[in-house]
Each structure stands twice: as C-alpha cells, then as structure tokens.
C-alpha cells in the first residue's frame, strides 16, 4: 500500500533536517528511505567533511540490477577519494559492524553481493558472522568502486583466487580499466573491518583488538611460532600487559606480510622471517636461517611496513611491496608509507581519520 501523503510529508520534514549535501547531484534513491513526492529544492551545503544522506523521490529511478552499467545511480553517491599518488601510498577504509544496525541499510549492502557471496553469507549460522560477511564484501566492493572513478558498479566486480587462495580482482578483458594496477586486502575483527588499497604494489593488512587476550602464554606462543630474535625481544619486556601488546603488534605485522605475499601461512611460516620494530629505519624484516631451506626462495625483504593504533582500540599493520628498493642502496632509509585512513558507512558517511587522534602511527 503506498505511503499516505501525511507519512510522506512527515518523512520529508525529517529527512530535510538531516540533509547536508556537498553536491546536489548526489541525490539518489534507495529502499532505506520512504518515498518523497519531489526532490528537495534547497539544500544546505556543508563544508569540510563530505556528508551526504540517502534520500528517495519520484524524480530519480531505482537503478536496475545491470552489472557494469554506469547509469545505475546507487553507487554514484560514493564520493571520489583523492587518488593514490604513488605505489607507496596506501588508503584504508574501515567500518565498525557494531555501529551498523539499520536493517534497511544492511539489506542495501546485501544487494551489492554476488550470488556466491550471498550463498556464503547464508551458510553462516551465526547472525553476527553473517552480518560480518555482508559488511566485509560490501566494504570491498564499494571501496573498489571509489578507486575506479565510481564508474564501475560495486555489484559488478568479479574476483578470482590466486593459486594459494588470495583473492584478487578479475578485471573484465574488454574494459578500459583492464590494466588497473589496483591491489586490495581485507582484515577483520568482530569490531572492525578494514580494506586496504594500493596501486601497483601487493598489499597486506591485518587488524587486531588491542585488548585481545590469548589463551596460551605469550612466550609459549612466540617460541612455537616466532623467531628466536623475536622471542628474545618479547622476553625482555617485564610487564605482562606491555608484552602482550608487543606480541599483538608483531602478530599483525607478520600477518600483514604473509597476506601481502599472498602465499598463505605455509608460504611464509612465521618462523622464517623476523620483524624488527625499533630500528632507526622504521620497521624492518629479515629472513632467518630457517628460510634458506628449499621452498622459501620467494621470501623477499623489499617490503614496507606501517603500524598504527586505530581509535585507541585496534592495532593495524599494513605491508606493501617496495618496488623502488632495488634502486636505493641498503643504507638509504625507505620513505615512509603514505597512509590515509577513512572510517566509512558506505553511501552514508565518510570521515577522513588519518591525521587525527583516531590514527596514531606507531612506526
């Protein structure tokens, strides 16, 4: 039954007070909002942060589910991010599942998923895990759309796995964007899902809650899985909480490296490389003698790392390939990774958080 005129005008009054748009042509329509009679004629423009709100009116059609068609306006509301300017620049977009509880918004995100992704989400018996799958795929698809000029519908991305199972974008052969050297990686904890994007460089990202406790003793875990030098550096820390946090930092850095390499846990067992946090040249990686066994020739050291604290609640490690290392001498310090971080509620709000208290670079 169509909404009554009264309901429509009430909804319009409520929506109008929330509308702050940068560009009025970002008006679009989605099932999350009630139908309004006409597009709003006056808009308040906000400066600074980009805020936009979804609204719906008869003036705009609901986009058809046609993959790859740029006419669908749903994703046109994703604002263009600043471009990635060099292979050393990493952009991270994250969302917090606990803050996203609007069912119609979640339904909208679910619409972005491919049939197989939806099937995978449906296979999750726990509702929270199902929500995480939906959010994680929606985050990936919307982020990729942003970095392809918002010209590719988030729904139309296809993915493949490399022979070790690392997901990559399957660029359509006939598309002009076929040569896009975009790389991505995702990490999630129950409270935060992050998507890292880089251009022309393989990338790995890992996030972990700062307060996370292990069931096993920290040094036992380290002795079993880390290298002797890492065990030694952990053993030197007398305060158990500080030791646990250092372990988590090392863990996320090592995970980020393995994910960046894309060969799985067994392609780069944690005991084959050491991460050093406190060197004068930032975070460094070196292969251990274990790595000279046959089968580990692919372990390389030309990778850049960055470690940050997000919202004072999470550690985030990013690892990207450093293609310029071959030109620089070993004495040269690698330039730091240029990191920009956004907190996002896709289609609703994006907030640049790097450069604020929310992102504290550790190394």
């Amino acid at each position, binding site marked *: 039954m169509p909404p009554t005129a009264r309901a429509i005008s009430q909804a319009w009054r409520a929506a109008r007070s929330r509308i702050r748009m940068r560009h009025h042509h970002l008006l679009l329509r989605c099932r999350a909002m009630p139908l309004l009679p006409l597009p709003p004629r006056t808009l308040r423009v906000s400066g600074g942060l980009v805020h936009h709100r979804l609204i719906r009116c008869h003036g705009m059609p609901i986009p058809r589910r046609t993959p790859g068609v740029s006419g669908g306006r749903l994703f046109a509301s994703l604002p263009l991010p600043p471009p990635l300017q060099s292979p050393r620049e990493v952009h991270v977009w994250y969302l917090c599942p606990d803050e996203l509880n609007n069912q119609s918004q979640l339904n909208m995100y679910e619409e972005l998923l491919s049939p197989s992704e939806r099937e995978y989400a449906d*296979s*999750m*018996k*726990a509702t*929270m*895990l199902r929500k995480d799958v939906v959010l994680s795929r929606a985050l990936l698809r919307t982020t990729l759309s942003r970095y392809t000029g918002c010209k590719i519908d988030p729904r139309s991305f296809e993915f493949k796995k490399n*022979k*070790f*199972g690392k997901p990559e974008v399957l660029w359509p052969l006939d598309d002009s964007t076929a040569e896009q050297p975009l790389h991505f990686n995702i990490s*999630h*904890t*129950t409270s935060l899902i992050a998507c890292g994007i880089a251009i022309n460089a393989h990338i790995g990202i890992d996030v*972990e809650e700062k307060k*996370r406790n*292990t*069931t*096993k003793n920290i040094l*036992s*875990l380290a002795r*079993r*899985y880390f290298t002797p030098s890492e065990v030694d550096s952990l053993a030197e820390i007398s305060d158990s909480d500080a030791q646990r946090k250092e372990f988590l930092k090392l*863990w996320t850095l090592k*995970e980020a490296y393995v994910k960046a390499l894309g060969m*799985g*846990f*067994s392609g780069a*067992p944690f005991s084959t490389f050491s991460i050093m946090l406190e060197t004068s040249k930032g975070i460094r990686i070196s292969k251990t003698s274990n790595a000279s066994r046959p*089968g580990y020739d692919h372990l390389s050291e030309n990778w850049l790392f960055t470690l940050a604290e997000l919202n004072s609640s999470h550690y985030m490690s990013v690892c990207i390939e450093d293609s310029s290392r071959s030109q620089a001498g070993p004495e040269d310090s690698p330039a730091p990774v240029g990191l920009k971080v956004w907190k996002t509620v896709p289609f609703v709000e994006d907030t640049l958080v790097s450069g604020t208290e929310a992102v504290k670079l550790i190394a």
Partner: protein
Amino acid sequence: MSAPVATAGSAVFPAHRLQAKQDTVDKVCGIVKKQLAVAEDTVVSGETKFADLGADSLDTVEIVMGLEEAFSITVDESSAQEIRTVEDAASLIDKLVTDKDS
C-alpha cells in the same frame, strides 16, 4: 583447495582420508570450545567449520598449539592450513599419532 605437495620430512595431508576416531573428534571439540569460548548451547561437532565459530588466524594457531600439546604431535604449517573443520583436525591428528607410534 590446492593439492597437497609432499616435501621432505613433512606429513602429507591426504585428499581421501579415513574417518577420524570419535574419541579424537570429541577431544578436538573440547579444545576448540575452550579456545573460542563457545557458548554452552552451541553445538560443535565434526562438521563444524572453524570459520563458522568466528575463529581468526590467531585463534586457529592457538587451537593447533592446544592440539599439539594434547596429543604430543607437531603440526606443520602446510597441514595446519588445510584444516577447515573439526573433522579435518581430528583426521590429521589421528594420522600424525599413528605415524608417530609406528
């Protein structure tokens, strides 16, 4: 899933494996439930996938370590990577224990 590759000195994880012993499956369920602090009413059985219980890589590594301690075995990374369900873990344990005892 890529085919397992045999390298010198490692346990090859066979594509077709004998069904794990129920006793092993039960023990694995217990270790997993404890590690992941699974709610009392959640059913964990041989078919349960670790991903379904929300296990991330650190959880998995701790579970594997718990299994190594409980069964006095060593699980190498390539085998650990193949484990998706409780049954997978139990089959691997049975095999490693048999290899160790023989």
